[in-house]
């Protein structure tokens, strides 16, 4: 088992002919992902790494049975791409681009919800189930199959955590990149629910950071979970009032501070690390 994607996921790449789309299609194929088609309206008929390029997502669904899409188009065109995928009946939509306007993201999320589409991102690294499927931009070699589910706000930090876990012999069921934007498709609580229901996931690692109240909201759900949760939080050393890159990573007043998140998560029964190499040991303890 894995959550959201698995070995039966048939992936279409929107924006396959671009620099990033093409490179990461190669990487996804190397990982073993079933990339069945790519989309570029002007370059239909071509191939990228042997993957056929079609003009529309509808064709990818009809001709090649695509049921999941990973979007690499530039941010100004991402809303159109997402709407096209949803309209074509895609059920898992991974939005890689950063800088998608928030109001576009809100429109995408409403439409996706109405059509029962699971959205990952935007501004994220994607989703990966080691040994089964990868949709996204993460480095292939740092993952291995195992019992840990990971959900992360930050891409690179999640690589750091997965890398530390894998080096310690702790593989992963699925790793989900939530994305750093204010409006995202799958949040901590939704990801935690999926992992709670997945029989192969034995412990969940949540990679969070300062700013916003997502971690505090997640803490409320963690109280009801049967599975242990280990949290890693970044931003302990960040000064208040400064926006640390991510839209949400700013401390305002007493909200969203490092300490308020540690307190909420600890009270909910999670173990909290503030240095990446502390995570494997905490996971091992909670695995029992």
């Amino acid at each position, binding site marked *: 088992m894995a959550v959201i994607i698995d070995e039966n996921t048939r992936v279409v790449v929107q924006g396959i002919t671009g620099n*990033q789309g093409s490179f990461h299609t190669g990487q996804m194929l190397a990982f073993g992902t079933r990339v069945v088609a790519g989309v570029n309206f002007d370059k239909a008929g071509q191939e990228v790494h042997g993957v056929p390029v079609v003009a529309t997502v509808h064709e990818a669904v009809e001709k090649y049975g695509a049921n999941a899409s990973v979007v690499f188009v530039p941010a100004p065109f991402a809303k159109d791409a997402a709407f096209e995928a949803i309209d074509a009946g895609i059920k898992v939509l991974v939005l*890689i681009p950063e*800088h998608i306007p928030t109001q576009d993201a809100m429109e995408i999320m409403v439409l996706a919800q109405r059509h029962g589409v699971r959205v990952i991102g935007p501004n994220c690294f994607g989703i990966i189930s080691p040994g089964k499927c990868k949709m996204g931009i993460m*480095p292939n070699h740092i993952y291995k199959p195992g019992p840990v589910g990971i959900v992360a706000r*930050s*891409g690179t*930090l999640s690589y*750091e955590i997965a890398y530390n876990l894998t080096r310690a012999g702790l593989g992963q069921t699925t790793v989900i990149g939530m994305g750093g934007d204010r409006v995202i498709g799958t949040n901590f609580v939704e990801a935690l629910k999926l992992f709670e229901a997945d029989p192969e996931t034995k412990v969940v690692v949540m990679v969070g950071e300062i700013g916003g109240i997502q971690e505090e909201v997640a803490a409320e759900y963690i109280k009801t979970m049967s599975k242990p949760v280990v949290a890693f939080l970044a931003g302990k050393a960040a000064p208040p009032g400064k926006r640390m*890159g991510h839209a949400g*990573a700013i401390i305002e007043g007493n909200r969203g501070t490092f300490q308020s998140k540690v307190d909420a998560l600890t009270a909910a029964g999670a173990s909290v690390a503030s240095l990446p190499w502390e995570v494997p040991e905490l996971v091992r303890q909670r695995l029992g």
Partner: protein
Amino acid sequence: MKLYEYLAKSFLAEAGVPTPKGRLATTPEEAEAAAREIGPCAVKAQVLVGGRGKAGGIKLASTPEEARQRAAEILGMNLKGYVVEKVWVEQQLNIDRELYLSITVDGQTRQPLVIASAHGGVNIEEVPEEHIVKRNVDITTGLLPFHAREVARRLGLSGSLAKQFAQILTNMYTVFRRYDAELVEINPLAVVGDRLVAADSRLNVEDDALFRHPDLPKVEEGTELERKVKAAGLAFVQLDGDIAVMANGAGMAMGTLDVLSHYGGRPANFLDAGGGASVEPTAQAIRFLLETRPKAILINIFGGITRCDDVARAIIQVKQSEGIPVPLVVRLVGTNDEEGRRLLAEAGIHAYTDMGEAARAVVEAAYGKGA
């Protein structure tokens, strides 16, 4: 991008929200002429910081001559780090009551959120939760008149004030959508006799949507260096330490500051070189770091969409073209990392694979052993 009060007000007025009569002035003489037209007025510094009144940035004037004097006092003053270049000369209002009204983005529900309060004129954070009315809007249908009427009723408004309020809210939503706003706020929304007037307002346009608004005037924020780095497409925040830090991804940059601090390092900045930064922007980022004259530099890259060989080429390019005069510690793993580390090794630069070891090494390099 935050807009000045006068721009926010002009966009609200265009959409049909009543605002006080006002004129922009950049000299005391212009302020005097404006006051001659407007009558008793408030002279308001146009800067992007809150608390202008307390800091002496808003002054009342009852005659044109007085308006000139007040403008002369305010223009050129330093208000919380910003030099005042413009004042907004605005009609004085006889305010009976103050309300609060804003529309923002709600990350939890993923929808626009209307926030209203019968207690305005203060920060909304200071208003007790039970006095605040909140209502989400479905962005695909928009804010409809019935939503606005409902909010007005929940605030306790009735009659003409309720009708005016509902109209203001729907017009404000038009501004929210038209300008891709992150925040549009009227505070206070003043009750003046039997009328409602937007006495002060804010409009923050989302940076990521600016491509849709090429006609908006550019409003610059931050220090000179922060602006320059932003123009180069990088996220940068100046801090007060002495070890310059570059990482890829905002989370990783924050994590790097944490690990550096853990070993006793004082970060000089937060620099997120971004996802997928290629050779040239990365080299640019390193040059920015050198401009801050740090004691040492720590580059921490976990490549996903960013390719480690590109990062290595950028480092080598800067080293060979202008030189790197301070200790440089590199940590490089992820996509194409073997190639990246090989390139660096050829150029005489060791690259760590462990983040903690790299952080410890840069602290030693900056402050000497035993620091």
